[in-house]
C-alpha cells in the first residue's frame, strides 16, 4: 500500500453498521430479555445502545453477535457474562460473538436512548 493510500485510509471515516432493535418471534423475546443488561457507563441497556447486531437461535442455543462502545473496554468481559446469565435465566445457552469491525458509533443509539441521555 502506498503512502498516499495509507494517508487516504487514515483520513477517511470508518463504515457504519446498523444495529438491531426489534425482531419477530423468539429473536424478539431474546432482544427483550437483553434489554435488562445495562451498559454501566452509558446507563442504557445494550439493545437501545445499539450494541446487539445479530441474534441467531438454534434450539436452546443462542448466539448473540454484539459490539462494544469501546474496543478494549476493561469491563467488556463482565458485560458478556451478564448477557449469558440473563439468557440462561430464560433457559437459553448463550454464546457471545464480539464484532469490532466496523466499530460502534453513537449514531446507532435508538431514538428513545437519545431522549434518555439528552
Amino acid at each position: 500500500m502506498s503512502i498516499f493510500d495509507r494517508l487516504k485510509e487514515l483520513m477517511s471515516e470508518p463504515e457504519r453498521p446498523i444495529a438491531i432493535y426489534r425482531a419477530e418471534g423468539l429473536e424478539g423475546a431474546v432482544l427483550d430479555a437483553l434489554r435488562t443488561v445495562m451498559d454501566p457507563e452509558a446507563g442504557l441497556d445494550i439493545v437501545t445502545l445499539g450494541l446487539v447486531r445479530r441474534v441467531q437461535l438454534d434450539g436452546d442455543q443462542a448466539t448473540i453477535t454484539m459490539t462494544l462502545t469501546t474496543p478494549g473496554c476493561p469491563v467488556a468481559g463482565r458485560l458478556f457474562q451478564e448477557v449469558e446469565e440473563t439468557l440462561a435465566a430464560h433457559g437459553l445457552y448463550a454464546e457471545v460473538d464480539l464484532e469490532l469491525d466496523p466499530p460502534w458509533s453513537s449514531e446507532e443509539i435508538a431514538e428513545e436512548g437519545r431522549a434518555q441521555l439528552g
Partner: protein
Amino acid sequence: MRPEQLTPWPRVLLPLALTMLAEAGAWLLIAAQERVDLQAWFGNTGLLAAVHLVTLGVLALAIQGVGWQLVPVLTAKPASSWFQRLSGPLNVLLISAIPLMLVGFLRWPWLGLVGAGLAITALLARSLLVLPELLGAQVRPLSRLWLIGAELSLWAGLALGGALYLARVGHPLLDDHLGGLGRHAGLLMAGWVGGWGLGLGSLLLPMFSIAPEPRRWLFAPALLLWFGGLALAWAPLWGAGALLAALALLEALRRRVKRRLEPGLRLAMGALALLALLGLAAPWLPGPLLVAAGLSLLALPFLRGVALKIGPFLAWAHSTEGLGGPLPDAPALSGALASSAVLGSLLAGALLVAGLLTEWWLARLGAGLGALAALAALTAFLGAVAGLWRARRARAALPGMGAA
C-alpha cells in the same frame, strides 16, 4: 474472546492520587517565591523544583499510571506479560525519584542526580513497554499515532535534557543553551504530555460523553502540524496544530449524545477550548510564558479532569466481579468539591499567567488557590472512589444482586 483487561487498581489509582498531592506541593513552592524573573526563571532553584514536581510528580506520574490501564484499552488487546509485570516496579521507581529530585534542587544536588537517574530509567523503560503495544495494534490509528509521536518526543526531550545537564556542569554540547532549554520543554511538555493528552483524549472524551471519534480530516492534519512544529521548533506551525486538534475534539464533543457531563469532563472540555486559544496566540507568546500557560491552563486541568472521571469508574469496576447495573452518581460532596477544584484550577492558572505578565503577587495568589484546588480535587477523588466502592459493595450484598 473475553476482553477483560482491568489492571490491578493500586497501579493506576495510587499514582493518580499522588499526582494531586504533588500538584498542591508545586503550587505551594511557587507561592513561596518572592519574585520570578521571566527571562531568568531557569536560575531559580525553587521554581525549578516546582516545575519538576509538576512535570514528574503530576504529569509523568499521571501518564505512567493511567497508561497501564488505558494503553490496553486503546489498543483493544491484552498487554504483554512484561507490560503487566513491570508496571508496579516502574511506578515505585518513578514515585521514589520525585522526592529525591525535589531535595536535589532545594538542598543536595547529588540526590537530585540520583532522582533524575531513577526517573529517566522509569520513563524510558515504560516507553520501551508502551511502544510495541502501540505499534502492534490494529485499531484507532490516529490516537495511536499521537501516542507514538509523544513517546518519540520523550526520547528526544530527555536526550536534550542530558545535554543541558552536561552544560550546567561545564561540558557544553549545545551552542544555544536557552534555545535548547526551550526545545527540551517543548518536546516534553507539548510533545510528550500534549501528545498523550490528545491521543488519550481522543479515546476517553468520546467514550465518556458518548460522542463519535474526532473527524479524521481534522485530527490527522492536526497531528502532522503539532509534531512538525515541535520538530522544527516553529511555534506558528505547532499553534496551527493545537488549534486544529482542539477544534477536532470539541467538534466531536459537540455531537455527543450524553448532554449532562461530570465536572471532570467539563474541565477537560474547558482545557480544550483554552488549547484552541493558546494555538492562536502561540506565535506571539514568549517561550517560558507559553510553557507556563500550557502547564497551568491546559495540562494540569486536562489531566485532573480525566483523573476525576476515570478514578471513580475504575474504583467501581474493581469493587466487585459483576456489572450490577449502571454506574451510580458520585457522592454529592465529592461532586461539589470536584466542581470547586475545576473552577479553582482554571482561575489559578489564569492568575499565574497574569502574575508572570504583570504583578507577581497575582501569581502567588493564584498559586495559593491552585494548592487549595489540588487538595479539593484530591478529596473529591478519594471521596468519589471510596463512595462508589462502598455503594458497589453494599449493592452486591443485597439479596439477588450478588456479584456474578
